[in-house]
């Protein structure tokens, strides 16, 4: 009834959902790019998918800028304003991790050694699953719908699982006698960066839980 009074707020809401769509596009392209990297290292398709990931990451940044500008244009109550900005800034660290992972593979010319392929596929699958669950959790938070806590628990479990895989891969890297010492360091850095994806997803998920509790009076 009073929607004409809250045009800016409606625009912010639309932009957040648009950000989540872009976030999912980034996840999809990242997934395809890594699958491509494992199957056919240094192929043109990988470069194309990396570019698309980058394009969507830039789009996500643009959306965040628009949200920021609207917020500074006095949309929403200051309390909600800062909550939403904190949430989006934390969420936006995930596309940065994904993009950095692809850049490392591309510019450091990294190939995943065969003995680690299964573990890397696992850690990426679980990380991307956590990110998708996180996007769902954000939507549930915005719509004030139930099911947020169970998503948080799953993301938390996934994060622990990824930590185990990450440690196993890193231990394997330094136990391997076939890999070059310099490659070991580079590959370890790549695995740590991939591991950071679920860590960040877990952080954002817990932030949503705090914001939910904060909204209760």
């Amino acid at each position, binding site marked *: 009834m*009073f929607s004409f*009074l*809250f045009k800016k*707020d*409606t625009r*912010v*809401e639309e932009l957040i959902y648009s950000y989540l769509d872009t976030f999912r596009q980034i996840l999809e392209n990242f997934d395809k790019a890594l699958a491509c990297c494992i199957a056919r290292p240094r192929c043109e398709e990988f470069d194309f998918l990396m570019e698309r990931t980058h394009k969507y990451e830039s789009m996500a940044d643009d959306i965040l800028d628009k949200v920021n500008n609207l917020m500074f244009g*006095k949309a*929403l*109550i*200051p*309390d*909600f304003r800062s909550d*939403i900005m904190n949430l989006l800034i934390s969420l936006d660290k995930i596309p940065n991790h994904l993009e950095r992972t692809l850049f490392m593979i591309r510019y450091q010319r990294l190939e995943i050694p065969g003995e680690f392929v299964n573990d890397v596929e696992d850690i990426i699958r679980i990380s991307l699953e956590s990110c998708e669950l996180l996007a769902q959790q954000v939507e549930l*938070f*915005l*719509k*004030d*719908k139930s099911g947020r806590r169970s998503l948080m628990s799953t993301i938390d479990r996934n994060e622990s699982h990824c930590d185990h895989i990450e440690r196993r891969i890193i231990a394997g890297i330094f136990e391997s006698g076939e890999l070059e010492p310099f490659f070991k360091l580079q590959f370890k850095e790549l695995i740590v960066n991939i591991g950071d994806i679920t860590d960040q997803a877990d952080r954002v998920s817990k932030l949503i839980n705090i914001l939910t509790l*904060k*909204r*209760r*009076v």
Partner: protein
Amino acid sequence: MLSLLGGVFLGWSLGANDASNIIGTAVSSKMMRFWPAALLASFFVIVGAVISGQAGIETLKGLTTLSVHQAVITSIAAAVTVTIMTVMALPVSTSQSVVGAILGMGILNNQLNFSGLGKVVLCWVGTPVGAAIIAVLLYRIMGFFYNRIPMTLFNSDHILRLGLILSASYGAYALGANNVANVTGVFVGAGMISVLTAAIIGGISIAFGILTFSRPVMETVGKKIVTLEPFSALVVSLALAMTIHLYTLVGVPVSSSQAVIGGVMGIGIVKGVNTVDISVLKRIFLAWIFTPVVACSVALLISYASRLRYIPL
């Protein structure tokens, strides 16, 4: 009509000061822009003064019988007291300074309505206490529904903002209705103007204070209130409006500053946190005693000074 200027000045300072209690939360937290908020508040202050301001005017009028000369001294003494208390950084209550000044005149006239005075003093103590109780009840009741009604983050934001606009309008209405008596009540008592004229002139002068000089006060005071989260700010704003309105129905002008402090104390009780510390309570208590005493003294001083005559040797 020049003698009315003292009342108009008092109304202007009241509007400038008390607007921060009414719309300070919404403006300093950027939930509303200053001008729409100030215009809305000014409009409702005048409406409140004209529609419901008579009861308070009748109470003040009944405290003592003043001459025109004494009515002018009363309003000037109240304005001077407000200024002195502001310089001393004590929370100012225009109601207390006006009643203190009337007391001074009553002492001079040897004519005081002690039952009316007792009612007014009792209501001063009751203002922060009543506001605290109302805030606790409102927080519990509104919180119950707020937590149970499913609404999106954005809908929740809209409801809180609309709530603040409505409660600020209600608060302005209550302020006009309640405090107009402080501004022009003494002139009615002196038989200078009718109750309706007093309500109109008082309401307009308070509104003028809001429009011309409330912004700096609001920026200082409002930020202190805004440390509350939005829901609590809404509860305080509503508790303030309801408290002042209740006293308007009783016909006693009370302090909106004290009502705000009471509301914040109520939130502190519910949340179990110290939103108001002991030093603030001490300052309120001091203001309860000092404001009417200072106003009474100033009124007596001005009265004596106005009777001095130069006698050449």
